[in-house]
């Protein structure tokens, strides 16, 4: 897209894009009646093989054994899946045992309790874990770890040391390419919601496509090479979705938010490559990995080859910089079942556990894969993002092998009017906020 300026045409910069979403697509999978035990087995096998390869450097003198092979008093290493028994975790059986009330039984909040305890499980059995090292509030069900310790008289396992998978291998990104190229992240647009201000989104679109501001502003906008919309782009009123038949007037209310989104998306797609990911509130499937939003929903934007509908989680490479991120369901679920000082800490933990969504399928909807676990992180990304958070936050973490990852929390645009700009050259991030409050 070119814009006239006094010095000639301003050209938008470009970057080479490669999608890595193939592992999250489920078009080729068939459901044959399998249960979730299959994906847990695949996850355990995958991660246990990897952890066994790390054992010689971690505790070379100790033998490893299965849970059933534990002997009392004998120090050894066991590898298995963690299960956290939580007293306050909502159970579907409560619907039958407790009285029904108008408000839902489950209030979305944190379900931690001081009585929670951890259990380690593999194919042979499970053992309760004890030890001051192991704080149940940090861990969640579904992580695979290696534990050093011994069985106590009471039949529990006393943990002395713990080994997480750690950050995976990272390919060095190209250094110092010279020019600044920006990626814009935005999430939680909630088009169609009563609280979202459509002016903010329009301002955002006008700004990044170069229709706003003077030459200097347009010059900055010309450096944007990619837009990523990380989920919850529409909001359809809850009252319309309670399963009742809709009259024709209400039916048009269902499709209006999507139509409005399509109009705005086509304005973006006309100028910049844009990736749209589904989120919790979008018309996509519920279980992770969410499949790309259908092209039919975007008759206007899908005509552009710059428009890409992507899965959630989404992984791609831009100029050999690797990106990985979700629309927020995995981190929000972690926030319900564990504790941390900030969302970035959850992000860091998932990377160190080498698994995007360890609570799937326990408390997070997930497709029952049989022979693979697509949420296992094989290559370390350079940028790891999560959408639909309360505020913009970012940090850099380092791995033991020299990996460097930029973590980004993308705030909900409908509430904060803030998008995130990331510089591909040095992975630095800043916020881009739009407001429309006029004093006087």
């Amino acid at each position, binding site marked *: 897209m070119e814009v006239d300026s006094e010095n000639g045409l301003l050209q938008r910069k470009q970057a080479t894009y490669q999608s890595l979403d193939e592992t999250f697509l489920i078009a080729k999978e068939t459901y*044959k*009646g*399998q*249960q979730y*035990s*299959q994906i847990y*087995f*695949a996850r355990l*096998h995958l991660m246990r*093989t990897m952890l066994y390869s790390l054992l010689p450097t971690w505790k070379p003198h100790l033998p490893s054994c299965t849970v059933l092979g534990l002997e009392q008093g004998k120090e050894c290493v066991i590898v298995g899946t963690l299960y956290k028994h939580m007293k306050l975790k909502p159970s579907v059986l409560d619907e039958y045992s407790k009285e029904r009330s108008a408000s839902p039984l489950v209030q979305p909040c944190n379900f931690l309790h001081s009585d929670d305890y951890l259990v380690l499980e593999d*194919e*042979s059995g499970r053992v309760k874990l004890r030890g001051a090292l192991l704080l149940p509030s940090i861990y969640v069900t579904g992580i695979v770890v290696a534990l050093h310790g011994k069985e106590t008289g009471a039949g529990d396992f006393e943990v002395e040391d713990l080994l997480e998978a750690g950050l995976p291998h990272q390919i060095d990104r190209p250094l110092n390419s010279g020019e600044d190229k920006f990626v814009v992240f935005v999430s939680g647009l909630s088009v169609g919601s009563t609280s979202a201000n459509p002016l903010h989104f329009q301002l955002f679109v006008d700004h990044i496509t170069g229709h706003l501001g003077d030459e200097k502003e347009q010059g900055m906008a010309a450096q944007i090479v990619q837009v990523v919309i990380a989920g919850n782009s529409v909001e359809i009123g809850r009252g319309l979705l309670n399963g009742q038949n809709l009259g024709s007037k209400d039916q048009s209310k269902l499709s209006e938010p999507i139509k409005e989104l399509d109009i705005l998306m086509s304005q973006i797609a006309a100028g910049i490559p844009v990736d749209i990911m589904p989120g919790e509130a979008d018309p996509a499937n519920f279980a992770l990995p969410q499949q790309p939003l259908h092209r039919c929903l975007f008759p206007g934007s899908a005509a552009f080859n710059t428009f890409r509908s992507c899965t959630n989680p989404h992984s791609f490479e831009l100029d050999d910089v690797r990106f990985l991120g979700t629309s927020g369901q995995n981190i929000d679920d972690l926030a319900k079942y564990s504790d941390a000082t900030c969302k970035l800490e959850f992000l860091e933990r998932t990377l160190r556990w080498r698994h995007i969504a360890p609570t799937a399928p326990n408390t997070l909807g997930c497709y029952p894969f*049989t*022979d693979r676990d697509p949420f296992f992180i094989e290559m370390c990304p350079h940028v790891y993002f999560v959408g639909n958070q309360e505020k913009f936050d970012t940090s850099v973490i380092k791995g033991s092998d020299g990996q460097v990852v930029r973590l980004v929390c993308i705030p909900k645009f409908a509430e904060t009017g803030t998008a995130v700009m990331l510089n591909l050259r040095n992975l630095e991030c800043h916020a881009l906020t739009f407001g429309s409050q006029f004093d006087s």
Partner: protein
Amino acid sequence: MASTGVKGFFREKKKGKPGAAKKSNKSASFGSDVVQPPALISHATLDLQEEYDEKEEVLRQFDMNMAYGPCIGMNRLDRWERANKFGLNPPAQVENLLRMEKANGLCLWDGRA
């Protein structure tokens, strides 16, 4: 699983199982045979597995082996291929039986659990 008429009530003579012919022609054996599992009773009728032979025995041992993961909900061939993909070296005999000799592709518990 419902049995097919009278056939399910009287145990037939099996081919290739010398000595077992004498065992019993009229009633099911309850747990006396280590290899064959005790007969299941479903819907108040005896539920006897037909076509049970050494090949099926090999396949059942494959089903029950914990090293290859849970067997419920998966085809035997899919489970074998997964075990192969994971580098667990599943017995080639099982693959032969499933591919060449078209033995029963469903796991032991299929439809029962």
